[in-house]
């Protein structure tokens, strides 16, 4: 029936008998309802007077007993005939369309989508939660498999976004709510108070250089400090600082205000409040990105209390811990933290030094699949990029410490992609020792970390005394990804 001659038959029957309703008893409507409705429309019948009784998926395919199946299909046909009696001719209608797109997230995905759309003459509103565009890609030192400088690719795009006449960038902002439907959404956006008048600010840097107080840098993942009035990283776009009100003494005790004194264009405004704006938009692109799975260290016996995330530790406890962000083996870091250590703009200026005492690590152990591919210890899926970035890390490490030893404990190498397998081979040629096996425990031994692992090829247990351990931690959605999905009303898992 759904073939061209079948359609012809259908059309001719409508014309010949002047039908005012059609029942197709065939297959599932999801597949061919549109086909038959189109045919009916061609034959001059209102397409919404066509109904489909699904006797294939609901009868013939699922019942072995022919009699039962036939009886059921008869019932279905009877029911659809009754339905057809009640159905009214309907007309499709047109709705106005707002030509403006809201993009959530100012990482590389959001930036690319914004540029593509704006270059096609579609106005864009870009909402970014942090004070600067860039997202996770801005944290990377080099990209695989070409070892290009990540920021060299990203920064020009960030500048292009901010300067584009059709892109309206809201940094330090969050989506409050979204009403409406396709083509006609109404978005409520909260612009968090920056305490800095954006239009006046020239980005001279006087304020954040003079600011006497510091807090942990989110961008550096706690490896370094930043001033309380800050831009996240030197290449930040827009180059307008914000005041971290939770840590600023002006807001806590009402004292200081040095930044306002040194600001030339006089743009510091301590009284600024959050602003709520509404925008009419036609479509949304969600590009909220990922973070690395928190709290994986306990898998290896780290000494952070297992139910405590670093956010829950009070300032007093933090001081007693070896390093600010964690109460764990200090030199066990995750992939993103290693990126910061290897980055030329990072806290160590591109020299790989371990966080605890700043020593150049002579032995580094990289552990792949931490938290990935194991639903008991993390997520069930493969995080896909860890094999590649671990290989990249070994290379960056070998380049920085030529005589260093690097070991990679892996489950298996998944390097599908152009030039990817070659990249892994190159890493191995450059000195990384790949050991197939898992690590069971990390413990402290002097100022080193004792890595207890296994080599499943030789069947032997392997102990490595490492100066630093890098975990290739699983990628998980941002912590508020589910809230965003609920705000937008889209499905999530």
């Amino acid at each position, binding site marked *: 029936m759904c073939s061209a001659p079948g359609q012809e038959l259908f059309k001719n029957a409508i014309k010949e008998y002047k039908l005012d309703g059609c029942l197709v008893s065939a297959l599932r409507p999801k597949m061919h309802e549109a086909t038959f409705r189109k045919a009916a429309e061609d034959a001059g019948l209102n397409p*919404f007077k066509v109904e489909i009784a699904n006797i294939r998926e609901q009868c013939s395919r699922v019942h072995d007993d022919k009699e039962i199946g036939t009886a059921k299909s008869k019932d279905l046909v009877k029911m659809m005939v009754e339905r057809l009696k009640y159905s009214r001719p*309907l*007309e*499709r*209608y*047109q*709705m*106005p*369309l707002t*030509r403006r*797109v809201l993009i959530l*997230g100012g*990482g*590389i*995905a*959001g*930036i*690319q*989508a914004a540029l*593509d*759309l704006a270059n*096609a003459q*579609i106005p864009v509103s870009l909402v970014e939660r942090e004070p600067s565009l860039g997202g*996770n*890609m801005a944290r990377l030192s080099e*990209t*695989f498999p070409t070892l290009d400088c990540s920021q060299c690719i990203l920064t020009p795009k960030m500048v292009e976004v901010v300067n584009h006449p059709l892109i309206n960038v809201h940094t330090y902002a969050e989506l409050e709510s979204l*009403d409406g*439907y*396709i*083509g006609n*959404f109404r978005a409520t956006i909260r612009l968090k108070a920056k305490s800095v008048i954006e239009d006046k600010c020239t980005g001279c840097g006087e304020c954040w250089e003079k600011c006497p107080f510091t807090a942990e840098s989110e961008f550096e993942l706690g490896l370094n400090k930043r001033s309380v009035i800050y831009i996240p990283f030197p290449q930040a776009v827009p180059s307008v600082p914000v005041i971290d009100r939770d840590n600023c003494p002006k807001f806590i005790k009402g004292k200081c205000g040095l930044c306002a004194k040194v600001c030339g264009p006089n743009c510091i405004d301590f009284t600024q409040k959050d602003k709520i704006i509404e925008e009419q938009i*036609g*479509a*949304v*692109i*969600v*590009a*909220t*990105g*990922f973070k690395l799975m928190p709290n994986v260290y306990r898998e290896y016996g780290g000494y952070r209390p297992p139910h405590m995330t670093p956010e829950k530790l009070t300032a007093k406890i933090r001081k007693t811990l070896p390093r600010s962000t964690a109460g764990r083996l200090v030199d066990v870091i995750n992939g993103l933290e290693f990126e910061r250590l290897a980055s030329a703009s990072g806290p160590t200026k591109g020299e790989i030094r371990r966080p605890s005492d700043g020593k150049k690590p002579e032995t580094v152990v990289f552990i792949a699949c931490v938290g990935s591919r194991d639903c008991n210890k993390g997520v069930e*899926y*493969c*995080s*896909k*990029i860890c094999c*590649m970035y671990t290989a990249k890390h070994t290379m960056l490490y070998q380049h920085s410490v030529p005589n260093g030893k690097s070991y990679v404990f892996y489950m298996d190498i998944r390097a599908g*992609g152009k030039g990817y397998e070659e990249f892994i081979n190159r890493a191995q040629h450059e000195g990384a020792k790949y050991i197939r096996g898992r690590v069971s425990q990390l413990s402290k031994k002097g100022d080193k970390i004792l890595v207890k692992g296994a080599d499943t090829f030789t069947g032997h247990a392997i102990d490595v005394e490492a100066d630093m351990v890098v975990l290739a931690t699983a*990628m998980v*959605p*941002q912590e508020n*990804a589910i809230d965003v999905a609920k705000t*937008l*009303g*889209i*499905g999530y898992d």
Partner: protein
Amino acid sequence: MPVDSSTGGIFLAGACQGVKDIPETVAQASAAASKVMQLFSRQELWREPEVAIVDQKHCMNCWDCVTVCPYNAIEREEKNGSPRQFLEMGCKGESRVIFGVRPCDAASIGSLNAVFSSANAGFDDPFFTKRRENTTIVTYSCTEPDESCFCTSVGLTPDGDRGSDLHLTEIANNRLHVEIKTPAGEAVAKIIEPLFQGTGDEEARLRAGKEVQKKMKRIRNSHLIKGWLDDLNNFDDEMWARLGEKCIGCGACTFMCPTCHCFDIVDETRGRKGYRVKFWDACQFDHFTLHASGHNPRDSQYKRYRNRFTCKFEIYWDKFNAQGCVGCGRCIRDCPVNLDITEYMMEVDLKASMPNALERDPDFE
């Protein structure tokens, strides 16, 4: 690469949709952008006219549609009251008659009464007791027991009147013998008074009852079971594992059983409101007694079936002083693997009456 979300007009790009590296992220971002361009390629948007409407006559205000609609298209209109009021309405309920209840089922309501009313349980479940108060039960003696029925084996009869308000028995010449058991039954009888003809025939009714009892095919002894179960040495008897091996834990028996009543209470959220919900549970499920520590005292299926059997023949008596099994035979009829509760009864009866007779011969079979 999938860039569509479940909602029209919202697209996904980058690692929020799934793990990917930078080249893939950029590709998906461009794909999402081109989807938006497709959408914006026309000046206006064509909409399909088929939409769902709420049938006000039948809507019972559960508001589930409001919660699940991804487009937030359904508006909540507090017309007929909130879900909570609905629940209370259901409890107050108008009085009703259940007609044609079989004697085994009528007896089971008495057993449930023991569980949910304050007399034995020490707590009144208003949901149950209110409904029970407003319900009149008209029983109808069985005429044709099938091969799974075994009510006579647990001390009931197919013409019994336990738990009945008004009891009907078929006697000869297509006539019914009517017995009024309670004031509630009397009230119903008054309503249907015009239907009565002649006087009752006590003798014919007893005769009819006896005849049906003769037709019972499945007859077991149950009076020794409780004593045997009370002996804790029998808790680890080999028969439990042997007979219960085939149970697949589907829970059909507990869901069909007229005296199974286990329930759980959880706090649920709907939107911004919270509800305390009671729902049925079943001892045949593997998480029924699962402790928070991960330990489960009934860690294998035969232990769960042992619990069910013990519950029916021992725990019910001990805890509620009521009959646990009424012999309706549903669990036999509906079991997908033909697990037979009367087989257990028979085995236990044998073990209880002849403690040493059932030493199994390993060479047998």
